[in-house]
């Protein structure tokens, strides 16, 4: 390596570092008059990218509607999207940038609990109000600037256990769950509540995210002869389980979690008849049509939540301005009623949804509808 090309490489490397420094450093935002910046930390790459792709259209629609009607007291809203890659490093990087460089007034997301656990301490320390969608139970306890527009897993697991035991009358259940924070959380809370009620869990099997050949696990479950199989899985393994359970002649009903309310899960014909719990959100047809016409995307479970999160922030900023403490106070005793996803959005002392109820839906002819036992 003669010295000349070594020098060239050295200079290039240094230039690159300086350029990086310059780009990152300059980007301050003028206070007062300019657009109000609100951050959105979503998973845009990796296996969880589909969650980001679900949430974004809701936020886009809300921003367009707010800005078309003159923004908040004349100031338009600007959304800064950051990819948190559903990882702890990604969450930390996304929030560090949103808080320190973009100096956003508030943040929507993250959607994944892994990213949230690393990111939220940053938001709390810098006092940036955050509306998260990630559902791991302990997240809102990280600080008083953290609020959640999506019910925590502990509620959903408990609700599912009670519904299966009391309403469906099934007392011997097997569990097949995905080994990530969401799946583990639901399994634990379901298990605890179901055994409290006197039910027995015949078998509890975890599968790694993204695995789609689950025939042997299902064979094992069938051998434990459950009356029902609780499957808090993601759409990919969910469809595979539906398909392979039918093939293996397992006729025990399948009961899933909230991520089954996606087009990806409901369209394949194998999933017809599968029940799943979901936050009692409405995803009204009219809203779906607006999303389709404005953004071209199909509205899924997280789309109305993204929409409402931004609308809540717009409402709060309208009331209290962009001073963090004022926004925090406004949020803690908020009772927002014209949300798309749920009739009433208000938070308990921890920052979780107060009026979080769940409903059970069933997959039918490519879509899902409320299930009446």
């Amino acid at each position, binding site marked *: *390596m003669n010295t000349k090309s070594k020098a060239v490489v050295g200079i290039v490397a240094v230039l690159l570092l300086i350029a990086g420094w310059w780009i990152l450093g300059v980007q301050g935002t003028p206070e007062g008059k300019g657009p109000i910046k609100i951050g959105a930390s979503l998973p845009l790459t990796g296996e969880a990218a589909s969650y980001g792709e679900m949430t974004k259209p809701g936020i886009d629609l809300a921003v367009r509607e707010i800005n078309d009607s003159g923004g908040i007291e004349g100031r338009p809203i600007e959304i800064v999207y950051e990819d948190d890659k559903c990882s702890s490093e990604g969450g930390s990087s996304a929030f560090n940038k949103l808080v320190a460089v973009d100096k956003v007034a508030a943040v929507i997301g993250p959607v994944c609990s892994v990213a949230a656990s690393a990111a939220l301490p940053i938001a709390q320390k810098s006092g940036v109000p955050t509306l998260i969608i990630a559902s791991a139970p302990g997240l809102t306890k990280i600080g008083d600037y953290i609020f959640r527009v999506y019910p925590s897993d502990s509620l959903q697991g408990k609700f599912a256990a009670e519904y299966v035991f009391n309403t469906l009358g099934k007392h011997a259940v097997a569990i097949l769950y995905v080994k990530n*924070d969401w799946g583990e959380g639901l399994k634990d809370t379901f298990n605890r509540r179901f055994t409290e009620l006197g039910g027995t869990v015949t078998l509890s099997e975890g599968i790694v995210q993204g695995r789609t050949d689950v025939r042997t696990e299902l064979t094992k479950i069938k051998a434990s002869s459950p009356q029902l199989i609780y499957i808090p899985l993601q759409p990919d393994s969910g469809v595979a389980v539906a398909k392979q359970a039918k093939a293996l002649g397992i006729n025990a009903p399948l009961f899933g979690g909230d991520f089954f309310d996606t087009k990806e899960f409901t369209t394949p014909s194998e999933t017809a008849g599968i029940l799943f719990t979901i936050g009692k959100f409405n995803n009204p047809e009219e809203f779906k049509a607006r999303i389709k016409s404005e953004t071209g995307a199909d509205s899924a479970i997280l789309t109305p939540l993204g929409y409402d999160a931004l609308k809540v922030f717009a409402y709060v900023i309208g009331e209290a301005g962009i001073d963090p403490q004022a926004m925090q106070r406004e949020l803690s005793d908020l009772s927002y009623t014209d949300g798309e996803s749920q009739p009433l959005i208000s938070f308990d002392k921890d920052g979780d949804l107060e009026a979080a109820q769940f409903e059970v839906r069933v997959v039918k002819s490519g879509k899902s509808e409320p299930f009446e036992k």
Partner: protein
Amino acid sequence: MEYLIHIAVLACIYGILGISLNLVMGETGLISVTHAAFYGLGAYAVAFLLVGFGINFFLATLAGMILASGVAFAIGVVFLRLKEVYYVLGTVGSNVILFSVLLNWNSVTRGPLGIGGIPRPEIFGFRFSENEAFLLLVLAAVAITYAISVLITRSSFGRVLNAIREDEDVVSVFGYSVYHYKLVIFTIGAAFAALAGAFLASYLTYISPFSFTVVESIFILSIVVLGGLGSGRGALIAAGILVITPEALRFVGFTPDIAAQMRQVLYGLILILLMLYRPQGLLGRFRI
């Protein structure tokens, strides 16, 4: 400014990983695709000891480095006897198995829920809670790692490693027990990977098994490849580039959902073009 410090801390952590893997892969030619597992062992040791027992950060880091070295020694004893291609596959296997242990040993690692609430380092009453202070600490760690790597490469031990990289049989005929040399450098590399893991855990205050997969090992491997074999400085600069460019790309005008994938395309292309036109990377002393 705060954000630059954040990136600088991440760049330093990956710098330590790059330097340590360069010792194993750059100097000695041992491609190790399990470096992220040692990185994870260091992180989980610190998380477990700090959160569980409130042990001082530096003691916990030491424990993490010893744990990782022990595991690395065991892996090395088994795989360093095998033919080169099988050794590489053996390391991939160990990474998958160690990741599965982190993911499934719920009682210790809390499985996919990960371990949160990891405190920042504290010594003589001063806690490195501000990022600026933490950056100084991690810079010191990088300096120590770099110094030790220079000490190793400049010594006769380093010269033997470079010779092993090129022609093992000749080195053994002249009286060196090549197997033991490989074992020692493999273990040293693992110890420093654990050091990086300790800093990651304390900096992010939360870790989950998903940061220590085979894909992460491949990322660390490409830092050494970009930096050039046999160059600690090259590994440091490459770590800086590979950490900063994705962050800088957050500012380039791609629409958000494309931007993220474009980063992957760019990153893949760098690897291909490097191999085609500059196999010795930026500042490498050796061609691969």
